[in-house]
């Protein structure tokens, strides 16, 4: 995986502050043949090197998104692997994990390989999550071993949770034998069924069928119990309620192999956004009240939540022009995630980068410890997956100007702080001065 890139042979990132898991220092970064060659103050620029200016910027390991819907195969009118990867690069991501809820679902080694092949031609590393059950139907186990052989480390029926506790227990046992990780979209269908937003004061007033917080929490609790019983490993996707954060906090303090992610919209938007019935605010799990938003932020701050993941979910405009309860749930996220974190989270930038880069890289095993080239640290010999961020630049989100094929960003018109200036993928400058290069 960590081979050299196809970009210019020599790249100089000049004048920035390097931040990675090891700390922070003012340094230039010299890249040669896809790898970092030197990290030091005032490096001489070799003749013929491509120079990326990083004055006033931070130079960090490329971001890693654990949760991206690339919609290919089956929904190419909404997104493709190529357009999604382009959005990822513009958002500072050098790796994304493609979710398996495509049409058909990614539930076989062949389907995995098809997406990996498409991903190999793009501007980011595209890893693939495989389905836990055949067709994501929740009825019988998909060939996890065959998919693991093809490189899958993370399995999920995302879009839905595995409803049967018995089947989930078998999945835990089987995955343990393979050394792979299960990831759950926690939503109990019998509680959430038919709901289109968070059940509470707003859903009651608006007359929209609701999904109670408990629909998420009972499945988090169930899977923690199963992880305990099977000594299994579980990653919780897009936690959205205070109760879920508490359950994960306790499971971690009990020493269970539990990790969790949160999506930017769950720490920036509340269910009050739904008041105008605009389906751009429909998402699963749904936007929650402020107390839950605060709990997610607290979970990010205290380490309960390990990663910020976008849940980038493109839907073509005509699908989002439907009545609220008929429009498909999901929001764009790749190009706004970093800026939202920098704007809304009161945390040191290194902690935010941990949530966006090296911690998710470790969860999906794309980090150097597992033989991958994602998540840094930025040191001689490491694969040059880098992101250069201007942490104080502001910009205003224009959904029509995003690289995605779709426009369903709920952040249109918002002015955010922090902007990706350059992105380097395996030594190739794929984004230069906020413009994607291919």
């Amino acid at each position, binding site marked *: 995986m960590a081979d050299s890139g196809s970009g210019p042979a020599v790249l100089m990132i000049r004048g920035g502050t390097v931040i990675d898991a090891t700390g922070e220092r003012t340094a230039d970064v010299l890249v040669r043949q896809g790898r970092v060659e030197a990290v030091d103050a005032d490096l001489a620029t070799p003749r013929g090197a491509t120079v990326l200016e990083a004055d006033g910027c931070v130079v960090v390991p490329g971001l890693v998104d654990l949760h991206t819907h690339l919609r290919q195969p089956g929904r190419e009118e909404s997104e493709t692997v190529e357009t999604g990867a382009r959005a990822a690069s513009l958002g500072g991501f050098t790796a994304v994990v493609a979710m398996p809820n495509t049409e058909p679902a990614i539930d076989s080694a062949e389907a995995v390989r098809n997406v990996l092949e498409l991903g190999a031609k793009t501007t980011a590393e595209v890893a693939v999550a495989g389905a836990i059950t055949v067709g994501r139907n929740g009825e019988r186990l998909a060939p996890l071993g065959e998919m693991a052989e093809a490189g899958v480390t993370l399995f999920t029926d995302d879009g839905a949770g595995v409803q049967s506790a018995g089947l989930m227990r078998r999945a835990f046992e089987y995955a343990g034998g393979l050394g792979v990780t299960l990831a759950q979209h926690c939503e109990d269908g019998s509680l959430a069924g038919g709901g289109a937003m968070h059940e509470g*004061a707003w859903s009651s007033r*608006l*007359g*929209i069928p609701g999904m109670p917080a408990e629909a998420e929490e009972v499945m988090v609790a169930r899977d923690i119990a199963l992880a305990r019983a099977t000594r299994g490993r579980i990653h919780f996707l897009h936690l959205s309620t205070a109760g879920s954060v508490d359950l994960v906090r306790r499971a971690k303090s009990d020493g269970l192999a539990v990790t969790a992610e949160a999506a930017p919209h769950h720490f920036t938007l509340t269910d009050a956004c739904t008041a105008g019935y605009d389906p751009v605010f429909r998402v699963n799990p749904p936007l929650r009240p402020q107390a839950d938003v605060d709990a997610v932020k607290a979970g990010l701050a205290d380490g309960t939540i390990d990663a910020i993941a976008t849940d980038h979910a493109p839907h073509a405009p005509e699908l989002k022009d439907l*009545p*609220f309860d008929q429009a498909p749930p999901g929001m764009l996220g790749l190009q706004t995630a970093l800026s939202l974190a920098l704007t809304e989270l009161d945390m040191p930038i290194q902690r935010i980068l941990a949530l966006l880069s090296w911690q998710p890289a470790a969860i999906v095993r794309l980090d150097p410890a597992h033989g991958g080239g994602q998540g840094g640290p930025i040191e001689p010999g490491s694969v040059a997956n880098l992101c250069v961020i201007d942490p104080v630049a502001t910009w205003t989100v224009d959904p029509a100007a995003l690289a995605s094929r779709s426009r369903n960003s709920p952040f249109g018109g918002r002015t955010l702080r922090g902007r990706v200036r350059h992105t380097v993928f395996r030594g190739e400058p794929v984004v230069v001065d906020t413009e994607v290069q291919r």
Partner: protein
Amino acid sequence: MSPFPTHLLSMDDLDADGIIEVLEVADSFAEVGRRANPKVPTLRGRTVATLFFEDSTRTRMSFETAAKRMSADVLSFAAGSSSVKKGESLRDTVETIEAIGIDAVIIRHASSGVPARVAGWVDHCSVINAGDGWHQHPTQALLDLYTVRQALGGGDVGLARFEGLRVAIVGDIRHSRVARSQITAYAALGAEVTLVAPATLLPPSLEGWPVAAVGHDLDAVLATADVVSLLRVQQERGSGEFVPSLREYTAGFGLTVRRAALLRKDAVILHPGPIVRGVEIASDVAELPAALITEQVSNGVAIRMAVLFLLLGQATREGALHG
């Protein structure tokens, strides 16, 4: 007094003054309805479209009758027989209808919020919500107020009696757009609203609702109520998931003959229709003089004339001056 709104999407669009204005204008249109030739030229040259994505013969007929009595041209757009079936989006449908040149669009839809979305898309026509999902049905609430005011003595006398009036709304409030509109409307005029329902048929949250009390004992509430407003038990939700059976519902929450005897002498009974006799109301109770179900239907036309007039009439007067 604040100006009458551009659209009528929810009872929240009207304050107490706005409600009173509708009721007073409806008085004069009710008089029109009693004439041998119940037709006035008020909206001549204006075009009103009904856009019903959900079946409702009663409400549609009421609106169309109201528009025709005011000499408006009426376009009747049934979603089932239109290009919607061919996959046309809601937005395209609305923009097409507006391009034909209409002044008001009256919308009913099974999804909450559709009239509000449509109001955001149109440029120059008024949007009237004729019922959206579980959300709102404002003209139903207005005609209920009108009917109650009539029963309380009519005019300013009737209006004054809303202050402190004890209104019980009984039945499936959770899934009811009528209840959501009624509660706001009654409370705006100073009435004390009590909800009576099995706990499963209440909304998940009543936070911010102008409700005086919530009860599960209908007998106790009936003894003091001035107005009993029943809601239809929607058969599709009538058993299994929300209540064990219709029989059990009727035993606990139906207005049976025995219960009707508990009512105060001057109490009135309302129901938005269609009624399911023997479930939420006994057949004999529906025939009592206290049951104003027929009055509600005839008042509905006058109320809808008033709403159309207040939304469109101003421009019409100006047009008449310059035309």
